[in-house]
């Protein structure tokens, strides 16, 4: 049973659903650039408009103003383009993307870039829990701090945090890399299978099977390259951590298990 609110936004009986599948056609397009004002639009309408102009109108550079912390904005974009948020998106922003380079001039809620395949996301402020959950590839840069379980189940890619990281960051990490410039809370890298975590600040405690490792030339090359690309200045002194391979070992598992995280 659909209902109409005072604002004219349509919801169905299940909650925050926008049943109308038509894009609102409200973007201001100027060549290959466009601006979407999200003030009066629901999440679905914003995403429909974003996909319309990126896929159908040949727009390569989109600015979304007034995102209003709405959830699930900019998800599922599978094309190279630039997306800028002037303001703060809510939970699950830019999940499942494959290609876009995203700039967020604000803060974000939980699960930024969840399951991202490729591209980059740069956040000028802090990000909530589960940042980069199940990240498969590409870069996430958070210039503030991140919440708990950042990079949980990470399967590739790089997460750079200039601030602090919450509890259980890198939990069950399977591949990829994290650079945390500030402090890390309890349980860093708990039950990680693979991948590397670099930490510049104090570590409250290491998680199960997360052990210190030696930095080598390739680590320094990688860290310096990422800091240069994203204009992050000089990286701090970092400690490296990896999986001790006591808790989990792929060699003892079915080969197909390992393929699942490639």
């Amino acid at each position, binding site marked *: 049973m659909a209902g109409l609110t005072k604002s004219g936004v349509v919801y169905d009986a299940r909650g925050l659903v926008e049943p109308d599948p038509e894009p609102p056609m409200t973007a201001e397009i100027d060549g290959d650039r466009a601006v979407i004002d999200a003030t009066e639009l629901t999440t679905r309408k914003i995403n429909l408009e974003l*996909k319309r102009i990126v*896929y*159908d109108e040949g727009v390569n550079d989109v600015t979304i103003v007034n995102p209003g912390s709405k959830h699930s904005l900019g998800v*599922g974009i*599978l*094309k*190279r383009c630039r997306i800028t948020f002037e303001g703060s998106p809510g939970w699950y922003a830019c999940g499942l993307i*494959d*290609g*876009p*380079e995203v700039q967020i001039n604000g803060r974000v809620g939980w699960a930024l870039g969840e399951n991202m*395949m*490729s*591209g*980059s996301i740069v956040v000028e402020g802090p990000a909530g829990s589960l940042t980069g959950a199940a990240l*498969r*590839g*590409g*870069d996430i840069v958070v210039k503030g701090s991140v919440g708990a379980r950042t990079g949980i189940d990470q399967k*590739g*890619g*790089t997460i750079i945090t200039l601030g602090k990281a919450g509890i259980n960051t890198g939990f069950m990490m399977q*591949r*990829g890399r994290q650079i945390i410039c500030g402090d890390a809370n309890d349980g860093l890298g708990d039950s990680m299978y693979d991948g590397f975590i670099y930490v510049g600040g104090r570590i409250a405690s290491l998680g199960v099977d997360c052990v210190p490792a030696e930095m080598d030339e390739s680590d320094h090359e990688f860290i310096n*390259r*990422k800091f*240069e*690309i994203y204009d992050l200045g000089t990286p701090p002194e970092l400690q490296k951590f990896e999986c001790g391979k006591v808790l989990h070992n792929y060699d003892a598992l079915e080969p*197909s298990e390992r*393929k699942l995280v*490639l």
Partner: protein
Amino acid sequence: MAKRTVAIDAEALAGHSFPYQHDISLVEDMDLMAATPGGDLNWLEDILLLEEDGTPAVFDRYSNSFLKIYFDIPEGRGDEYARKVLMTHLTTGNSYGIQLKEKHCKFHQVELGPWVADSKSVGDNYTPPVLEGWEAPAH
């Protein structure tokens, strides 16, 4: 008796191998930096030369299959050539995952993914398959 296999191989999915698995000259010109977002290799950083059935191979995450490499790989450049073979496979549309898009994609997207500019769109006219002779039960 039909041959059974537990391996997931790009050749098994396609029914044949591809020329760029055999001829290094067909992948030499692949510009990896141009094919990826940002100022470095981005997601390709996680793509490494692996081995499948004793043969050098690269893993195609878009079809969950290994793509074997039969040409001689120059020493010390294994990851680079693994990435070049994979990107050639993807950009030519030969990845089985990409071939499935035309028929099974439920949402609007570009067929060849983010690596090829001006790739055609798929997923606009998806209709769910109908099982012949089956009717939805009355509720």
